[in-house]
């Protein structure tokens, strides 16, 4: 069943009844586009739409769309749709199912839950809709249930954080790791990367606290950090925090105690506050992910998959360390304070 896309919007009874009769017979209408001039419709489903991080992801998806379209070989349309309520797993599951049924050509998904999203992703596979997972993992089989996994190498992020902290401490002293909350896979890997590297490469740095957790929010992290600093302020030389809220809480506590700049401090992820603190020297390093690149590579991967290219099981989107010295290079600026207006102008 093919309907003319350019049918005039007319309301003459004849036309309307024609439309209605078309409608009645259209229930089983399948794909209707000519494969040669077909626009590939790719649904990009983030965990939420309002956070800064997801805005960057959106920008990356649009970047990929524009590049692919200007390359001209194939038309690509990105459908950007997150759960209506931030971080709502049920709505994300519904979204995946809706897109699968709608017959999009591919899905790029950042699963809110590594088990709950498995069955909708398998349904997509059963209906031959390729899925690329990005940002967070999924407990399903890569290559069978989904095409590839595009994400930050979080372990390596932890390694880089440890190297930076070891470097600014000159390879000696006492350090603290303030963990994020229990059960978060990505930060756990960062913590492991940090600890392994500390033990291996900086044996003279003593880790005096590695079991405290910052909790989910910046405020919880702030209070936990205050307690930690009260206890250890006379001996600690360096601190590592594995995510944005923990780092922001620790920064607040350091400033409140007047210890900022005196204790070496390496954080993870960027926010305006953290980047400013990096500029002032209150923070000695920020490990940065590349959310723009993540979505960009996610979209490119799913297109490659559709075009029959063989994908690796895992695509690394890169991590880098911003320091007070290198933070103003164009390359670093693009990571910690990207100009999103050129992508998200609508």
């Amino acid at each position, binding site marked *: 069943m093919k309907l003319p896309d350019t049918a005039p*919007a007319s309301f003459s009874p004849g036309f309307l009844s024609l439309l209605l009769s078309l409608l009645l017979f259209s229930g089983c209408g399948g794909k209707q586009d000519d494969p040669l001039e077909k626009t590939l419709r790719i649904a990009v489903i983030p965990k939420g739409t309002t956070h800064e991080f997801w805005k960057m992801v959106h920008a990356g998806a649009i970047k990929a769309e524009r590049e692919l379209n200007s390359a001209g070989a194939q038309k690509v349309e990105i459908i950007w749709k997150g759960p209506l309520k931030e971080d709502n797993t049920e709505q994300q599951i519904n979204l995946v199912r809706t897109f699968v049924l709608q017959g999009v050509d591919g899905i790029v998904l950042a699963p809110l839950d590594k088990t709950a999203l498995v069955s909708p992703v398998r349904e997509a596979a059963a209906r031959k809709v390729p899925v690329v997972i990005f940002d967070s993992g999924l407990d399903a089989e890569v290559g069978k249930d989904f095409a590839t996994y595009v994400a930050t190498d979080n372990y390596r992020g932890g390694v880089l954080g440890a190297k930076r902290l070891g470097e600014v401490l000159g390879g000696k002293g006492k350090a603290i790791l303030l963990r994020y909350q229990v059960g978060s896979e990505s930060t756990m890997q960062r913590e492991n990367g940090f600890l392994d590297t500390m033990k291996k490469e900086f044996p003279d740095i003593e880790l005096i606290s590695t079991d405290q957790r910052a909790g989910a929010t910046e405020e919880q992290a702030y209070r936990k950090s205050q307690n930690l600093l009260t206890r250890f302020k006379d001996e600690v030389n360096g601190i590592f925090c594995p995510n944005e809220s923990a780092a922001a809480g620790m920064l607040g506590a350091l400033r409140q105690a007047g210890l900022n700049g005196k204790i070496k401090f390496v954080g993870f992820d960027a926010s305006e506050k953290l980047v400013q603190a990096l500029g002032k020297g209150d923070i000695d390093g920020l490990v940065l992910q590349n959310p723009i690149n993540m979505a960009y590579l996610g979209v490119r991967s799913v297109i490659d998959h559709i075009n029959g290219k063989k994908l690796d099981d895992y695509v690394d989107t890169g991590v880098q360390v911003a320091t007070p010295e290198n933070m103003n290079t164009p390359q670093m600026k693009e990571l910690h304070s990207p100009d999103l207006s050129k992508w998200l102008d609508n």
Partner: protein
Amino acid sequence: MTPGAVRFARIYRALLPFLSLAVVLLVFLLVDLFTNGGMRNFIKVMNPENLMLVANQNVIIALGALGMTLVIINGGIDLSPGSSIALSTVVIALCLKSGFSSSVALLAGLGTGASIGLLNGAIITRFKIVPFIATLGMMSIARGMAKLLSSEQKINVPDPNSEIWLKDMLYGEGLGPFSNGMVTLVVLALALWAVLKYTVFGRYVFAIGSNETAARLCGLRVDGQKVLVYMLAGLFFGAAAVMEFSTLGNGDPSTAIGKELDIIAAVVIGGGSLSGGKGSVLGSLVGAYIISLLRNGCVLYDIPNPVQEIVTGVIIVAAVTIDQLLLRRRS
């Protein structure tokens, strides 16, 4: 009001939800005609397979709306279902995790919902607190309990492939093309409809909602009746929680935040009146379907989330406004 006007009002009220549904569909059609001059998107919406998917996604809100219908007809309101659902999913997941069977977990989930409802009813009647405040408190209490029980973590149920049939309660194959969830919904809806229409209890629900003082003066045991209403509603929220668990496959203390608003909106679009005495099972089901259809349609039409929220709000206000305008003019 003349008898004729009353009859008109009754028939009209029964039809209103369908009118809203028709308007929503018409708007979808017109938007499609005017924006891309065809019916591509509208056809996608009307595809039987899509309508079925919407019906499945609708089950959770609809089950909640059934319970809420009871409360609203009775002249009350319940703000706790979202939290109650989260608490029940946690309880279900904890049961399964500690090795109990699906049946035990099911009963525990339903029991949790009913207990929260019982507590609501007890607080409202014993302490003479208006339902809005009492259930507002319960919304926070139940959410806190869910987080406490789960140590603020999602409770994963081990082995997704084992014989935990509770996980297939929503999408599992039921009768013919209908899923387990849809069959459950229809059975429970019929049961509630029959109870409201044919039992003394059901008639009392309307009587108390229409005029509590009169009902009291007639010798009805209003307090006991109210407790029962909130408890039954809680049972429906427990059933919604079972479906939520079936969707997520885990117990999540932070799930269903704000779900109570979807549920209340479904009842209101379906002709329920927050001043009590009015509302119907069928209306609430249609109301819930409208909300789910809007959500689905906005995805198919590629309408951004903020616009979607505005549209939902406009429809709630419009449905109630038209309702009141027409009735007022007639009387």
